[in-house]
């Protein structure tokens, strides 16, 4: 079907579209399926939009509407935006799983989010008020009920001493009520003039009832009575009162707590009330990472070890893997395949399982390595800072060389025989052949793999977490980190997932710093690889 260059009339265009449809799709069925799928997705998104409106999530609403417009705009018209039809799903996934997550991490890095700053200011104020409303010590417990009188909620109580029934509305003083009918256990069954609420009515008005406070007498400083279950009431006192106009809390001694601007209420002399709330803190977390001596010391040590670990891991596994690959590439060797399979075996075990097994094998007294292999030596594999590093590197060598062996074997076999033949003719020694012919040729395909292996080991969380958990611990710092911690496992600990206080803000800041470090290394590495390619 050749496209005519002249302008088409409406009817002709329709015809062309129909023709196009008959060419590109096999009749009405795919069309129907497409419409049904699109309709289902639209219905789903509209439902999402409605719930977003209901919960006031405007950003999500905007995202859903954008998605709706794009989805229908791209897929509804036939035979248009063909590239977009291929790209759209990928872009959606990218924005949700990559950009979204990164964006959120960056946002957290600029907040004080963590233990003690976990929620909004409103939540914090509510919590502080609840936490500082305490029952008057030794006060009576009242059987009570909630009732309606003239449309107003009333708290009705029975004085346990006098059996007198009293009632009052919110903030009012209790007055005696006559003629109430009590149950056998002293509860209130009916009160004349009052409509006693059923429990289902009580739960429906939970908020009002939780806020219902009645006074014992006119004295503003005296205790008030409040119910927690609807059927029992107690005397309470507030030890902190909130002034919404000034946005301050005042305690019984008159000390005033004001919003510090850093996510908590503090007095002028630095006393703080828990909980605080989440606020933006600018570059505070990054500043702490680099300037707070308690954090900076361990951070720099961990960074140095992370580089050493990643570099040594790649170097050792590559050296061993390449050495073995060359050995087993010798055609005169018998049973090559069996040896190769044996070499790759460690690669077949799940890494985390191996790490756990190794942790047991390296036990100083009961472990197989010391007990059997080293004949009862007492090497402190996992508890001494230096030995722990050695242990981590050795275990990673065991875990990592099969991969290097595998890729090196592949690369070796791709080196054309005639090149090596020529070298032999020229009288080059085995070492010279390796050094000047094989290695450069190998490095071209292997260098990118080494860089990615470096990046992988830079973040080799599983090994560290399961083998040493970063230990042995640094002494005398407030940051929980140890001699074999990598940056990534330190971030995990700073975020508080291994016990200890949670500080998501600082952890996110670290995560961003790590991102830049790895990004920088990868950039430099790949630029280096390019020069390597040009050389050949």
């Amino acid at each position, binding site marked *: 079907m050749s496209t005519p260059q002249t302008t088409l009339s409406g009817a002709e265009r329709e015809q062309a579209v129909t023709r196009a449809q008959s060419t590109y799709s096999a009749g009405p069925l795919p069309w129907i399926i497409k419409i049904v*799928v699109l309709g289902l997705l639209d219905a789903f998104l509209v439902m999402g939009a409605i719930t977003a409106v209901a919960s006031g999530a405007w950003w999500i609403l905007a995202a859903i509407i954008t998605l709706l417009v794009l989805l229908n705009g791209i897929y509804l018209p036939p035979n248009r935006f063909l590239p977009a039809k291929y790209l759209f799903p990928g872009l959606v996934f990218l924005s949700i799983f990559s950009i979204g997550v990164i964006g959120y991490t960056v946002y957290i890095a600029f907040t004080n989010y963590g233990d003690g700053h976990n929620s909004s200011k409103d939540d914090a104020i509510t919590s502080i008020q609840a936490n500082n409303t305490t029952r008057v010590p030794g006060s009576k417990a009242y059987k009570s009920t909630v009732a309606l009188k003239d449309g107003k909620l009333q708290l009705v109580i029975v004085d346990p001493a006098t059996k007198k029934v009293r009632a009052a509305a919110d903030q009012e003083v209790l007055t005696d009520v006559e003629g109430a009918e009590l149950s056998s256990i002293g509860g209130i069954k009916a009160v004349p003039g009052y409509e006693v609420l059923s429990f289902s009515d009580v739960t429906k008005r939970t908020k009002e009832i939780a806020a219902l406070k009645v006074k014992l007498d006119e004295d503003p400083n005296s205790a008030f009575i409040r119910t927690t279950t609807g059927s029992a009431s107690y005397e309470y006192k507030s030890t902190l009162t909130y002034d919404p106009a000034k946005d301050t809390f005042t305690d019984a001694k008159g000390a005033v707590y004001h919003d510090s601007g850093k996510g908590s209420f503090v007095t002028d002399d630095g006393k703080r009330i828990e909980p605080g709330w989440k606020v933006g803190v600018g570059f505070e977390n990054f500043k702490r990472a680099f300037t707070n001596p308690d954090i900076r010391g361990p951070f720099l040590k961990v960074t140095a070890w992370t580089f050493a670990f990643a570099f040594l891991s790649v170097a050792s596994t590559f050296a061993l893997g390449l050495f073995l690959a060359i050995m087993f590439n010798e055609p005169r060797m018998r049973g090559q395949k069996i040896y190769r399979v044996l070499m790759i075996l460690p690669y077949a075990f799940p890494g985390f399982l191996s790490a756990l097994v190794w942790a047991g094998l390296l036990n100083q007294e009961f472990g197989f390595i010391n007990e059997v292999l080293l004949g009862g030596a007492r090497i402190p594999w996992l508890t001494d800072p230096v030995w722990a590093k050695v242990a981590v590197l050795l275990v990673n060598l065991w875990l990592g060389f099969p991969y290097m062996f595998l890729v090196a074997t592949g690369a070796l076999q791709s080196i054309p025989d005639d090149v090596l033949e020529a070298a032999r003719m020229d009288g080059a020694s085995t070492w010279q052949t390796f050094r000047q012919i094989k290695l450069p040729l190998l490095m071209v395909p292997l260098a990118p793999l080494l860089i990615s292996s470096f990046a992988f080991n830079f973040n080799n969380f599983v090994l560290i977490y399961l083998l040493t958990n970063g230990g042995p611990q640094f002494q005398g710092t407030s940051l929980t980190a140890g001699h074999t911690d990598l940056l990534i496992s330190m971030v995990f600990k700073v975020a508080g997932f291994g016990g200890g206080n949670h500080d998501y803000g600082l952890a996110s800041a670290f995560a961003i710093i790590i991102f830049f470090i790895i990004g920088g290394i990868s950039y430099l590495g790949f630029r280096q690889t390019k020069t390597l390619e040009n050389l050949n």
Partner: protein
Amino acid sequence: MSSTIGRRGFIGLAGLAVGATALTACGGESTSSSTPAATASAGGSAAADAGTITVWTDSNREPVLKPVAAKFKTDTGVTVKLVVKDFGKLADDFVTQVPTGKGPDASIMPHDATGRLVQNGVVSPIELGDASLFEDVAVQAFTYDGQVYGLPYSTESIAILRNTALAPDKTPDTFDAMIEAGKKVVAGGKAKYPFLLGLDAKTSDPFHLYPFQTSFGAPIFELGDKGFDASKLAMGGDKGAKFATWLADQGKAGILNLNMTQDIAKAQFFAGKAPYFITGPWNLADAKKAGIKYAVDALPKAGDQEAQAFVTVQGFVMSAKTQNSVAVNKFLVEYIGSVEVQTELYKAGLRAPANKAAYEAAKADADVASFGEVSAKGVPMPNIPAMSGVWTDWGTAQAQIIGQKAKDPAKTWQAMVDTLDAKIKKS
């Protein structure tokens, strides 16, 4: 022809992909907003229906709570939705999910999480009504800053598990006498170790060593009328130094062995290789399975004071953001707190009930009675948030001392106390 198929296939694939995308995109916020919608519709459907409360529990307690929830529904019309969670993740999930409005109305919780929950503003105080119905240590455990934040239901602590085939007599009162007795069994060729205690090579185990530490008069915090005074550590000074020296001696003598992990110690004891093993009720079921004849004894003292173990209390806490506080309070205080339910919960978990009357009944079980006796003498594990940062330093110092890496045990100990003091002051 091939292009036709390719294109058709592509539409299908794209539809699938976008469908999945839409699902993931909406998954996040639709759950949050469906909660109010669900409660609203539930409220409107029937007059007797008084709404729903969601309670997190673990798989062990869920079967016991189910009939309680059913009874609560018949009595009050409130539906209790039980959600089974991994016990280890409860506190973390509670802290992160309550502020978003996605959290539960109440959750089962170990008491030592209390401080962290309060610090993050995710729990509400609970009015127990008559607190004297519960064991003192249980109420104290959930008390933070003068308020009670949980309805306690069980208490547990460690004690001596004695292999009665190897050591028929009751465990001696002092540590030295116990080791003496254990050594006799070893000398008789019936056992390999006089006494077993699982330790970690790097972080020791301050929890299991705590009774010995307290017997030297060096508790972690000073214990006052209102529970621990968390403002200052009390484990330094001369008494702490004495304990540190003791640790070093035991390490040197090989009685305390850092390479004896929990797993190894447990396996050795179950293989009948030692007469005494220090552990908690969580290993009883396995001991029975292993066919070990055992008795539960009080902890011996190493110093001149009484050995006090840490007591862990399980209970239920209420979310600060619950929309149904009245129903939650009623469910926790009047139902979970009742003698009947606490007895049922005890049968499911074999931990001493926190309700005094239920505990008296459960004492018919010799194990519960013995462990309960130790608990009654014990102290609740501190519930302040700073505590979570204390364990590693504390244990690391102990490990260094036991492992003979500390030249001067007393100095290493004091240095650790000073570091922790600074840490606690800062937080």
